[in-house]
């Protein structure tokens, strides 16, 4: 494993690479390919935290829990609450802030506060030629030039290796209340979640798990009970909402599927499509983001995309045996014109194909 301590050493390692590298931070997301590992974990440390400007800048390898602890000490947090998939995937290691950004890993609060890419204000990265690049900055409004930072978010290291990220942070509310509506099928649950999300109660979590629709509201202690009351009233057509223990960490990390046999897929859908997609998928399911994200557990080797029909192009295979991953690919095929654009970008940012090559490709071509 190559473990540089400075950005210049990342550039050296990339320039010296004659074969594909498996780029990562803590390698907790089960995405590493066969090549020699290049870890940014050695590029660690918070560079700047300005609570009054809602800004945090950290080197890419900074452990996520270190970022969380620093922010918590000032009553703040990263709103996008990235999932920790170690239990689901059976991986070890330390999740990093750079890994969260590179995979655009976003938890339940995304439904209101946006994804990792929405919090990203700027970054530094080293591309496949070894050139160090800065893009964006550390301010909330910035339209100076093309937005490469958000392009890097979710690129899984295939365009460049993140070395530093600047993020918008938000206040940590004083209190949270979760309401549970038991005994709903997916269609009724999505209807209830949609009603809540289209109403001004500012729900920061909207999920369906084990037949329960779950909604979270957060705010100041003085006014939160009133808001939770309004939410409960709004949900009356679907039943009597009751207060529940905090389920959000388990939903975020998909703990319900951890340690259980089967392949784990995630789907991104319009909420209105979720009930139909789940019916086609079969298996056990969990909905987050008001139905815009589904997690599905199916028997090993299932070609879920084949079953899903028009929703097949929205399915990502997150956990499976190597043979299944090789046969089906993690990512769905893209439309040919979009795949061509992505390929042209990768050819320009990584002309030698050394940065996680093939990670986002589909075996059926494209990507």
């Amino acid at each position: 494993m190559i473990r540089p301590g400075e950005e210049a050493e990342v550039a050296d390692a990339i320039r010296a690479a004659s074969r594909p590298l498996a780029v990562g931070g803590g390698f907790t997301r089960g995405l590493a390919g066969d090549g020699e590992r290049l870890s940014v974990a050695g590029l660690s440390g918070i560079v700047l935290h300005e609570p009054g400007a809602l800004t945090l800048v950290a080197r890419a390898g900074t452990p996520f829990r270190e970022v969380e602890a620093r922010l918590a000490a000032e009553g703040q947090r990263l709103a996008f609450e990235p999932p920790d998939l170690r239990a689901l995937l059976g991986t070890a290691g330390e999740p990093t802030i750079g890994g969260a950004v590179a995979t655009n890993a976003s938890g339940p609060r995304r439904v209101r506060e946006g994804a990792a890419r929405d919090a990203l204000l700027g970054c530094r990265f080293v591309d496949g030629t070894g050139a160090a690049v800065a893009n964006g900055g550390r301010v909330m409004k910035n339209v100076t030039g093309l937005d490469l930072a958000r392009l890097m978010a979710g690129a899984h290291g295939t365009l460049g290796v993140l070395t530093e990220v600047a993020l918008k942070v938000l206040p940590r509310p004083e209190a949270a209340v979760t309401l549970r509506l038991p005994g709903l099928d997916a269609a009724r649950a999505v209807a209830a979640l949609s009603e809540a999300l289209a109403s001004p109660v500012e729900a920061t979590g909207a999920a369906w798990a084990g037949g329960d629709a779950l909604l979270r509201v957060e705010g100041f202690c003085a006014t939160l009970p009133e808001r939770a009351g309004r939410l409960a009233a709004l949900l009356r057509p679907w039943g009597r909402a009751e207060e529940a223990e905090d389920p959000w960490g388990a939903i975020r990390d998909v703990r319900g599927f951890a340690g259980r046999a089967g392949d784990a897929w995630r789907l991104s859908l319009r909420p209105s499509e979720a009930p139909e997609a789940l019916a086609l998928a079969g298996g056990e399911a969990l909905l987050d983001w008001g139905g815009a994200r589904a997690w599905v557990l199916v028997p090993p080797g299932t070609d879920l995309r084949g079953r899903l029909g028009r929703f097949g192009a929205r399915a990502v295979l997150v956990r499976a045996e190597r043979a299944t991953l090789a046969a089906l690919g993690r990512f769905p095929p893209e439309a040919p014109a979009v795949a061509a654009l992505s390929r042209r970008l990768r050819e320009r940012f990584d002309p030698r194909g050394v940065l996680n090559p093939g990670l986002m490709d589909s075996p059926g071509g494209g990507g």
Partner: protein
Amino acid sequence: MEMPPPSPSVLSRRGAIVARLREACPGGVIDDPAETRAYECDALTAYACRPLCVVLPSSTAEVAACLRVCHEEGAPVVPRGAGTSLAGGALPTADSVVLGVARMTRVLEASREDRLIRVEVGRTNLSVTAAAEPLGMFYAPDPSSQLACTVAGNVGMNSGGAHCLKYGVTTNNLLGVTAVLADGTVVELGHGSGEALGLDLLAAVCGSEGQLCVVTEAALRLVPRPEGARPVLLAFGSAEAAGACVSAVIRAGLIPVAIEFMDRPCIEACEAFAKAGYPDCEALLIVEVEGPEAEIADQMGRIGAIARGFAPLEIREARGAEEAARIWLGRKSAFGAMGRIADYLCLDGTIPVSRLSETLAGIAALGDRWGLRVANVFHAGDGNMHPLILFDANSEDGLRRAEGLGADILRLCVAMGGCLTGEHGVGVEKRDLMGEQYRAEDLEAQMRVKDAFDPGWMLNPAKVFPLQASASRRAA
């Protein structure tokens, strides 16, 4: 400001190109020089150039057909929304075809369940929100030109507005687009779920100033309309106190929907014009919070308590709709009020909120050095400054000196850890200042994205990237 010379071969084939475009876009081609004049500039009126011709397609298919013709003819294309750009984003060159989307205004779909609206991008920003009204929802980014500006321009420039602190800018509210590449290929980017599964190409397109493709349809995120909103006016004895109060409010865990800042020159001009009854003070803040009545009252209490730590001259909380309107009246008429007393150049740099007072002092010092007055009115919550440089356009070197001071102020913003433009875009206006913020390698990386989308460099030429940096690509 320099633009590259037009292509003689394109100019010489003007008649043939216009004829082909008439076939591609029946009834939508303007080539009479008296009429193309309306398209010679945008809201940056200091620069103007009549285009080869103008096309106004009515559908994505017509946009694609026009782009295929331009691609085959080697004619550059300048995409245009409503032409409200303050940065010259829609400024044509003499050999370019202006592609206006003003005829594409349909609402394609509005869904409360999926919390989105899909529109053709010639629709104005404000009329998107009007179309969402029956759903009890609205489209959050609200640039001050929202009555006129189009979704096309909003996507092109990644527009902001006064409410970004809470709701984000266009890129945070854009779910997907239909777009046409320079060679006429139609692509769908993004998805109604809001999540990209492959590379997030939508993120690169948003704010790309027409450099990558022509966007024709957009899926926009809708958010619920709040139960109510109320502003409070906070008057201070110094700009420093007002700036420090902004940070303290944010620090206390409050995210007001807007925090607007005005300094004395701006307040005085607004008072003379709009007579909103603003207090006599060095700086004021208008802080607006929203929600149900109990939460508004609670937040108002917190904001008042914080403000009292900065020796406020007055705390004026609106007690009703009329008082709220009066508090906003001065702010909303600020640009008109300044225009009455002088010509002005409106800047758009962003700085970290923590360096507000320092930057204001720096701007004042630069103004003294250039012998020009600067009034400040801006979105303080997110650090997006709009210094207004007052000058006399009729004096011989008025504009030149104003632009010189403007460049110095933007350099100051970058030195403070900020950026050249927060919401107006680079266009031609800040094109040659890009080197202040980005090194050659940084610009090279951005230009590679353009290479991938628009290999011939035919879309919106000679904008965003310094001419020298892009010269070899444009010549290729």
